[in-house]
């Protein structure tokens, strides 16, 4: 007796030959016919078409060939302008509270209780300060940016962005739905990588995974906003500062989109050859956003979750930073050894050893780059009057203090611009790398996804630094 399963499959194969190749289309057609018939019986449409269809009118404007992209850039700029303008005051209030008031109080309390110096160092100067820094740097911009972005999302604008980008993606040999996973990446690259599941073709899905990192994520927005506010905004008259800093952040985000196209184009002509497949994208109706619910969900879902993740990553990183700053080998701390080791390469890239070390320490989360850089800068520049010892994040009196410290660390406008570029173009965070491995189940593609943006980042910053130096700008 033969295996009934194998038997059945054989019968099916034989019968399939009888039916012919048109079956799939026949079935699809039968489904469509039935669906159309049923819907027709159940739905009564209004007799007269409304004279003015608002949805169509908005669509014609925001997806128009002429106005689509300018409107997109304008909307993004407005969102960042509001974020930058609104975040300044609460940020410095939080910093004053957590760093200037609470931290010394904790230190005093610890010494009154006779806590050994190394323990209060690790806990208060390392873990607490790193966490406090993350909260004061990240909370205000996120609390403003996420609700605004979520309102745009609820209104139905994101699919229109995807629609506008679709043509460019197919020209780059990629799938139009990559626009959706990329948009998701603007929130979180790990989520963006998971979102590529909507793409049917494995080739196009890999392209979408490998390039998702070029969508600036939650963790990187605060870095860009802060660096741009301090260095770019301050280089122009005060009245324009907010607008110019917002424009700089938008430029980096737009550059990321352009890089997505360029790298997708490159991949689809080299490692991942093939034709772009077609698909249909549904433009959902515009829906008036529910303001309060949006505020609630974006505060709970995004702001607090991202903040919590940042704090849980920052606390151990703070411990690491304090430890490498206080363990001395041959008269210098481990951190100083590492920074001077990386300084030469950092200089070539228009960055410095501190920034590179910060990117190594902060692999688990992009969110803690700025706090890490500040801690390490204070240490290596051996600033007097700030902080109470090695690896201690300092107290600051105003937003200008950050600039003063970075200037003391040898920062120039070139450093700031290259940091913004490197923030856009470097390896994904470890969470995203892990997600890429889960989604591709391939060490090779995970390695490519990690190394490709890193090498590209080195190339871009090196080129810009060299050009700036040759032209005498820096």
């Amino acid at each position: 007796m033969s295996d009934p399963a194998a038997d059945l499959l054989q019968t099916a194969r034989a019968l399939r030959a009888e039916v012919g190749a048109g079956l799939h289309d026949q079935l699809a057609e039968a489904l469509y016919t039935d669906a159309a018939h049923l819907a027709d019986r159940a739905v009564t449409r209004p007799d007269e078409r409304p004279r003015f269809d608002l949805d169509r009118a908005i669509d014609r404007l925001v997806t128009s060939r002429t106005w689509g992209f300018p409107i997109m850039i304008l909307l993004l700029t407005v969102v960042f302008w509001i974020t930058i303008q609104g975040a300044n005051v609460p940020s410095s209030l939080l910093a004053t509270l957590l760093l200037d008031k609470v931290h010394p109080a904790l230190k005093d309390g610890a010494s009154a209780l006779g806590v050994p110096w190394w323990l209060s160092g690790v806990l208060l100067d390392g873990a607490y300060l790193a966490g406090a820094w993350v909260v004061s740097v990240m909370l205000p911009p996120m609390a403003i940016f996420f609700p605004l972005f979520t309102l745009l999302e609820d209104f139905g604008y994101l699919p229109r962005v995807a629609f506008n980008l679709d043509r460019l993606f197919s020209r780059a040999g990629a799938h139009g739905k990559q626009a959706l996973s990329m948009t998701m990446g603007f929130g979180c690259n790990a989520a963006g990588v998971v979102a590529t599941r909507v793409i049917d073709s494995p080739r196009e899905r890999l392209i979408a995974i490998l390039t998702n990192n070029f969508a600036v994520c939650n963790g990187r927005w605060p870095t860009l906003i802060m660096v741009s506010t301090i260095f770019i905004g301050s280089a122009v008259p005060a009245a324009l500062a907010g607008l110019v800093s917002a424009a700089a952040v938008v430029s980096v985000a737009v550059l990321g989109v352009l890089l997505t196209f360029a790298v997708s184009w490159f991949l689809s002509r080299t490692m991942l050859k093939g034709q772009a497949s077609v698909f249909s994208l549904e433009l959902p109706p515009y829906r008036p956003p529910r303001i309060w619910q949006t505020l609630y969900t974006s505060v709970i879902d995004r702001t607090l979750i991202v903040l919590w993740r940042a704090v849980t990553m920052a606390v151990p990183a703070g411990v690491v930073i304090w430890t490498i700053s206080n363990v001395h080998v041959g008269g210098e701390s481990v951190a100083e050894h590492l920074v001077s080791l990386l300084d030469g390469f950092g200089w070539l890239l228009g960055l410095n050893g501190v920034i590179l070390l910060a990117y190594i320490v902060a692999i688990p989360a992009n969110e803690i780059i700025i706090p890490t850089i500040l801690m390490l800068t204070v240490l290596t520049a051996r600033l007097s009057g700030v902080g109470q010892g090695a690896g201690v994040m300092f107290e600051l009196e105003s937003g200008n203090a950050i600039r003063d410290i970075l200037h003391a660390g040898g920062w120039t406008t070139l450093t700031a611009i290259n940091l913004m570029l490197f923030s856009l173009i470097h390896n994904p965070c470890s969470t995203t790398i892990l997600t890429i491995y889960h989604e591709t189940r391939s060490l090779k593609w995970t390695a490519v996804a990690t190394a490709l943006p890193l090498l590209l980042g080195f190339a871009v910053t090196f080129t810009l630094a060299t050009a700036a130096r040759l032209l005498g700008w820096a």
Partner: protein
Amino acid sequence: MTMTTNTLPGSACATCPMNRHLARLGVSMDSWDYVVALAGNPNTGKSTVFNALTGLRQHTGNWPGKTVARAEGGFEYGEKRYKIVDLPGTYSLLATSADEEIARDFILFGQPDVTVIVVDATRLERNLNLALQVLEITDKAVLALNLMDEARRHRLVVDERRLARDLGVPVVPMSARRGEGVGELLQMVHGVATGEIRPRPHRLASTRDAALDRVLSQLVARVEAAFPGLPNARWVALRLLDDDASIESAIRDGSLGDLSRGLQTAPVAERLALTGVAS
């Protein structure tokens, strides 16, 4: 024909008895009486329905493709505990992409006690396409006619009674984001899960091709012989004729055989484990 959105008493009524029975449990529950699957096209408000039922505040976005993995939650109604699984939104169940495969495998192998098909009332034709495919796989379904507020805004009138008669499954008009119709949906889900309501869903009529119909009935007989008790032999036969690789492998590795051996009566946890849902 009239605009019928509140045909059942008690819609959008937070203090009605049915809503008081609804103990919102979030995901904290560890045993279930029934499993409910939530299927539907992208951007029909599935996640909003999910949140309305579970009390979870999963972020919902106005764009297709937001939910690509499965979200899970639970609720209690009529003294029964329900586990609810939000499937990725898809336009079809032909399993050409990962999200379609996740949705289809869950409905096929997870054998949910009820599948709630969320459809956009303003785009009924396109949405019924998926609904009909779901009804080919399972009998136990409820159609949630969501976004009725949008339909009203566009001055569309949807006759849900006729639709329910035509489809052979309960149809609940609702606006999940305003909380309208949630109570009625729960009633219907409860009814189907407990067997008080026995849907007799619309199945694709003959394919209008005599030769195909003859081949199909031949193969259906073979499928039924190989897997007695399979709830959707006709659908499996059609998939086989359509050269569906994942169904072929389900036959080869015996997972389809498990279905026919009465897994329907297996404990919920066992059925969930089969499709990889942590229990």
